[in-house]
């Protein structure tokens, strides 16, 4: 019997109409041989038979695929709940109606600045802020569930609260990713990386704002140990033991963010069945079977390691080169002496 696969991250294209300075997959131009609709249908169908009930569709910019709505229909027909990540610039009333028709679960729109100039500069195209806002409004007016997501960097540090306010006003979920991953173009912008002390100050401010004026949904992308206890129920986590990622050219891994790490490819769906890759590949077996106590650094000492299992493994791998490495943020908090004492085990190895 195959181990349960509940979630699929599927990048449908690497093509993108923006040029975000921190893009982890170097999106811009479509990959040489991206998956066809028939191939996507086959892999979705196989994922469904392995138990998958949810898929996150991303890219690149998914709406640049001319058959993207067909992909969504396939998900719908197979009984797979779909969620989309988009830069929001290509949303039209017609597209929004189609999304509603195929029952898309939620559309996450990226907003990396509260000011047009900040968002446009970070995303490399003038005017993309107003297009994203227009897209968000259309989605809301159509009655769809919408999220706003932002990636924290030094350029937008002072605007994060305002981005959260936009989410609150639009009744959209809010999510912040606190770190630019040092992969893809993210490697080229070290000056944008926010220091741990500044991040801590921002987190404390956001936590306070969330207590006084709660958003529809709030997540700041840190592990449970870095969340205040009273807001712990608002966080989300990747469950890599039950999910896998597929790149737009068919490579399978724990997540599609593996552009820089061909060694993390577990197989290609053009050569092998997904079931076989998912069940037998050493990579997925390693992730599934990795005991939390074998995590390194602060994660080994943390009370929460069975819950978060070390957080984003691609982040850990990109920083330390080992899938057992600690969550880089938790480790940096620990090294700076600001990791909460109560999250550390009483008896430490």
């Amino acid at each position, binding site marked *: 019997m195959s181990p349960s696969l509940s*979630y699929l991250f599927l990048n449908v294209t690497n093509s993108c109409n923006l040029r975000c300075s921190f893009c982890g997959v170097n999106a811009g131009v479509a990959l040489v041989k991206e998956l066809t609709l028939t191939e996507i249908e086959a892999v979705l169908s196989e994922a469904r038979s392995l138990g998958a009930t949810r898929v*996150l569709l991303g890219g690149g910019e998914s709406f640049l695929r001319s058959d993207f709505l067909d992909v969504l229909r396939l998900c719908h027909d197979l009984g797979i*709940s779909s969620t*989309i990540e988009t830069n929001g610039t290509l949303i039209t009333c017609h597209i929004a109606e189609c999304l509603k028709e195929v029952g898309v679960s939620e559309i996450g729109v990226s907003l990396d600045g509260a000011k047009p100039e900040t968002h446009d500069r970070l995303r490399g195209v003038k005017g993309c802020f107003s297009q994203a806002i227009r897209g968000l409004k259309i989605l809301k007016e159509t009655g769809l569930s919408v999220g706003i997501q932002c990636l924290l960097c030094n350029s937008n540090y002072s605007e994060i609260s305002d981005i959260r306010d936009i989410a609150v006003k639009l009744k959209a979920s809010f999510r912040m990713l606190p770190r630019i991953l040092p992969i893809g173009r993210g490697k080229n912008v070290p000056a944008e990386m926010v220091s741990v002390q500044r991040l801590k100050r921002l987190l404390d401010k956001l936590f306070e704002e969330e207590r006084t004026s709660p958003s529809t949904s709030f997540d700041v992308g840190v592990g449970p140990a870095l969340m205040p206890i009273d807001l712990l*129920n608002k966080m989300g986590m990747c469950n890599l033991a039950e999910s896998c990622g597929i790149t737009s050219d068919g490579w399978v891994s724990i997540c599609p963010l593996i552009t820089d790490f061909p060694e993390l490819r577990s197989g290609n769906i053009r050569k092998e069945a997904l079931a076989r890759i998912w069940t037998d590949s050493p990579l997925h077996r390693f992730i599934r079977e990795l005991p939390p106590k074998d995590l390194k650094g602060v994660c080994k000492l943390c009370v929460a390691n069975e819950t978060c299992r070390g957080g984003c493994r691609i982040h850990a791998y990109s920083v330390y080169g080992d899938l057992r490495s600690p969550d880089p943020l938790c480790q940096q908090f620990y090294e700076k002496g600001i990791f909460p004492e109560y*999250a550390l085990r009483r008896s430490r190895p």
Partner: protein
Amino acid sequence: MEKEIEVENMRAAFSQKLDILKKTSKVASCIDGGCSDGFRLRKETMELQALITEQLKRK
């Protein structure tokens, strides 16, 4: 000593919340500056927690 007791109490509260989180949340996602499905799942988690709290109150 007082500090130790405070840390111990917080550790207990933290562990209790983690247990609920483990029981009620499944998968969220995180990719290229964004997470989408996690939003909905967190909503589900909160609904479940509200339900559990309600049931405990009734007991």
